[in-house]
Structure formats: C-alpha cells, structure tokens
C-alpha cells in the first residue's frame, strides 16, 4: 500500500463523512434542481421527477466521496462539482422562478 498516512484516523474519517453527508446533500440538491430545469416537461412534473431522482445522485456522490484517495480530494471534487452546478443553474434557470 502506497499510503503513508492512514485514511481511517478519526479526524480524516470525520472530515470525509461531513463532506459526504452535508457536502453531498448540498450537491445533490443542486444537481436535482439543475435536472428539474433541464427536463423537457411541465414544471410540476420535472420538479416531481427530479425530487425522486435526487436520492440516486446523493447515493452516487456518497460512494464517490468514500472511494477517492484522500478526504482533501473529496472536498475539492465536491466544491468543483458544486461550482459547476451553480453556474449551470444560473444559465438554465427559467425567467419565471425566484
């Protein structure tokens, strides 16, 4: 094993868990909202469908966070993904909402 620092020390695990649970929650909400904008259906239906899909996103994000090499990489990845999502949201947001 090439890792010198063990990734299962308490602080690292805590950091990764917070990234997964809270960071993942934020990202999955952003992605699901983006999906609701992009789906070609009436708003009611696209929001309803995106809500139902959001948990799949959340699950995949959590699994990804726990499979990368370090907690730092996980945080970085999440932040980048959130940033891209926010940009996407801004671009895709329909005029009528908010």
């Amino acid at each position, binding site marked *: *094993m090439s*890792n010198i620092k*063990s*990734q*299962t020390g308490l602080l690292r695990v805590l950091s*990764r868990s917070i990234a997964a649970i809270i960071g993942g929650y*934020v990202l*999955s*909400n*952003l992605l*699901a*909202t983006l999906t*609701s*904008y992009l789906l070609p*259906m*009436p*708003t*009611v*239906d*696209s*929001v*309803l*469908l*995106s*809500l*139902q899909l*959001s*948990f799949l996103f*959340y*699950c995949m994000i*959590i*699994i990804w966070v*726990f*499979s*990368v*090499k370090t907690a730092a990489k996980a945080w970085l990845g999440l932040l980048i993904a959130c940033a891209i999502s926010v940009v996407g*949201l801004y671009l895709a*947001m*329909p005029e009528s*909402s*908010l």
Partner: protein
Amino acid sequence: MNGTFRQSMNWLHTWSGLLLSSLLYFIFITGTVGYFDKEITHWMQPERPAIDENIDQRNILKMAEQHLNTIAPDAQSWWIEFPIGRSYSAVTWWQESDEQGGKWKSNTLNLQTGEAVITRETGGGKTLYAMHYLLHYIPKTLGYWITSLCAMFMFIALITGIIVHKKIFKEFFTFRPNKKQRSWLDIHNVFSVLPIPFHLMITYSGLVFLMFSSMPGVIVGSYGTNMEKHNAFVESVFQKPAHPEHNHEPANTLSMLDLMPDIESRWGENILHEIGLEGRGTAGAHVQVKHHEYSGISDGEELVYHGITGELLFDSMKESHPQSASKKLYTVLTDLHEGNFAGIALRWLYFISGLMGAGMIATGMMLWAIKRREKSQRTGKESTGLQWVEYSNMGIIVGLPLAIAVYFWANRIIPIDFANRENWEINSLFITWGIMLIAPLALAKKYSPLSLWIKQLVLASALYLLLPVLNAITSDKNLVSAILQGDWVMAGFDITMILLGLSFGYAARRIIKEMKTKE
C-alpha cells in the same frame, strides 16, 4: 480511501449500516407491524362487535345516516366506512363545522342496534405504525428528517452491501449452521440478499415518501421560498379529480341513500369501501364513493356525485386523463411501499420480508460484535466500545419486541376511563424499551452478555405467550370463541402472539444449550 474500491465500500457498508442501526431496527419493526395495523386495532378494541357476515350496505348506510343525523347534524362532512375487506367494523366519521372547531371524530356502529359502540381510546395499530415515520415525542418535521436520514444510510448500506458481496450468486441459498462467525455472516446474507427487491423498493420508496420535506432545495429552485407556492405545488401533485369548487352558499344537500340505486347499477351491490358527503348544507356539496377493490396496486375506482342534484360528476373508469410519467412513478413507489392493495397472502409475504429486513439489521449488529470479540480473543486487544455494543445489542434487538408486547399488555390493563390512556399505552412501550436498554448495562458487572440475552428472550417469550390468556381474562373475546365465531382477525392475532412467544422461547433454549456446552 485506504486500499481498493471494494475495501472502501466494505468500510462504508459497515459504518453506514451500524451507526443508525438501532433507529433503523425500530423503523423496520414498527413498519412491518404496520402491515397489520387494522388487525391490531381490532384486537386492541375488543368492545368492537364481532365481524358481521350480514353486510347489506344499503341498510348500513341508512342506519349510519340516521345515527349521524342524531349526533352530528351540523357537521360539514359525513363519511361512512363499510365493514368490508380490511375494515372490520362499520364506522361513521364526521368533521365538525368550522364554528365548532372543524375536528374529525368517529364512532363505531353496532349494526344490530344502530347505536355507537363505546370503544376504548387507543392508538391501536395505527399509532404503532405511524412511529415508523414520525418516531415519537418529537415534532413531525424532525421525525421526517431523522427517518429520511436513516433511510439514506440504509440505502447506502444496501448498495455497498451488493457491491462488496463477491459471491452473491455462488452463495445464494447458503446457510451453514453451527459455524460461529460464518453462520452469522451466512444468515445476514440470507436476510439481505433473498429479499433484495423488497429492500431496495422499501428503502427508496421510503425516501421518496419524505422527499417533499427532505429535499426542499429542488422545490425552492422552481417555486421560490414562498410557503404558499410550495403548498400549491404539493397540492397540484395530489390533485383529486373533478370536485366542485368550495361554495358556502347554503343549500339542501341530499341523502347519500338516494344515490345507491345509481351506484349499484354501475358497480353492483355491497362492494363499497366508503361513501362520504363533503360540504354538507352548502352549494359546493359533493359525494365521493369508493369501490373496495384495488385496481392492480393503485386505489380502487371512484365516483363523485353533485351533492344537491345527484348528478354524476366523475367516474374514474371513464376518465382518460393519463397521469404524467413523474406522477406515475411517484404513485407506483408509494403504493408499493404501503402495500394497501395486498390481500391476505401477499400481506403476510410483505410481513415476512419486513421481518427479514429487521433480521438483516439485527444480524448485522451482532456480526460486528462477534467479529470484534473473536479478534480480541486472538490478539488480546479489545476494540473500543465493544463491551458497550455487546451489552446493548440484546436490549435493542429483543427489547423492542418485548416493549411492543408490553404495549399490548397496557392496552388491556390500563382502565378504560383512565385519563390519557392512549398516551400511557405508548409511554409504557418506550419506558419498557428504556428499561430493557439500561438494565443490561447496569448488570454488566454481574452477568455475561449471553445470560442477559437469555433473560430478555425468556421474558419476551412469557409476555407473548400470556397475551391470549390476558385477552380472555380482560375482555369478552378469547381465542376459542373467536375461532368459533369465525373472527379470524382476533384469532389470528392471538395465534401469532403464541407463535412469537414460542420463537423467543426457542431462541432462549438454544442459547442455554450453547452456554452449557461451553462450560
């Protein structure tokens, strides 16, 4: 993380499964019990008349409307639930007028006399089942959030479990008893893998059920933070077919009995589940009629009549507004989760699958402790918290069913006119569970974990085995009379309690045997 993808997923599986395992066990047990909520309520209110074979629904409707006219002439809504399917009594419901407070009330009807039956106040099976998504003693929204979080942990545990199970097909159907750790792993696999369709469905649909509370960001994205717009969105999702607008102009509303000829010409006789008159005394009154048979997994057919003219406004068999794909997905998931459509055989299968889920969680909890204990015996070093876990597992796993038995005992022992008896039945459940959790920890110095398992199992066994006896002593119903009268719900409950008692007893015996061979 450390090591390969599989190793990381193994770590994730262990911890996402273990961290909230007690709560998940509670959710699974109360949810599983909930599939028989109506049957449990029937047992918990023995004052209810024995199930009537004679079910002339026109007669019942006439009696019910007369009864409602006497006790709730000013109510804004009247509903009658017929004794058919899983409804074991005729029940009248009414909603008081807004001036009187707008509260919903109900009475069980004695079909011989047309009078109300005085039934004891109890949460019954419904409250036991509601704890499954609300927990208890905490605000509704907090309950939704905690349950959603648990469901997410469960979903991760399921997915990672599937990922890491290398020999999932080769080890299908495998259970090797009497091999210590290997046997526990085998049985954990049996409870997890065989019901995979159920576990995946129940967990994901559970998440979907609560999604309006748990993923608000998506709603905010299209409807802003205005609460009214949110509520409008949710309402439009659950929009009901063609009901006339609310109109508070006073008007003479008809009697539901007048509609029976038309209903019977469309659907036949004695097939109604419910009939209800909403907006009584106003121009916006309408009557909803529901068929008792389910169409596939969805709710049965429905008719809506104008409450003044009696004109048919809506017939679900003729309407052709197809649901959108999103709505269809939502309805399918929630219908599957609730299983309202399930007949008796399928309902027992749901129950068995739920028990296997609870078993999956329990064996997972025990497997962790057993593995760590064997490791500590080999290496001489004990994991932190291992003793805590060993002395709390039995309180959680056996303690909860034990507490549920005490809930049933409380139902018979608490006097009928005791204030707040409904709350005290529930309190006795949680007080018992609390004692079962704390006692082993307090007795840890004196007793080994195995002996404490035996004590709790024996106690649970006794409580369950004696329930039918308690039933006979404290009510006019008992197992024998129920069988003779054909009241299979009452009899079924007592028989199930006996079987559960025997199971706990058998488990206790096996552990006693194991302890003897160890010495």
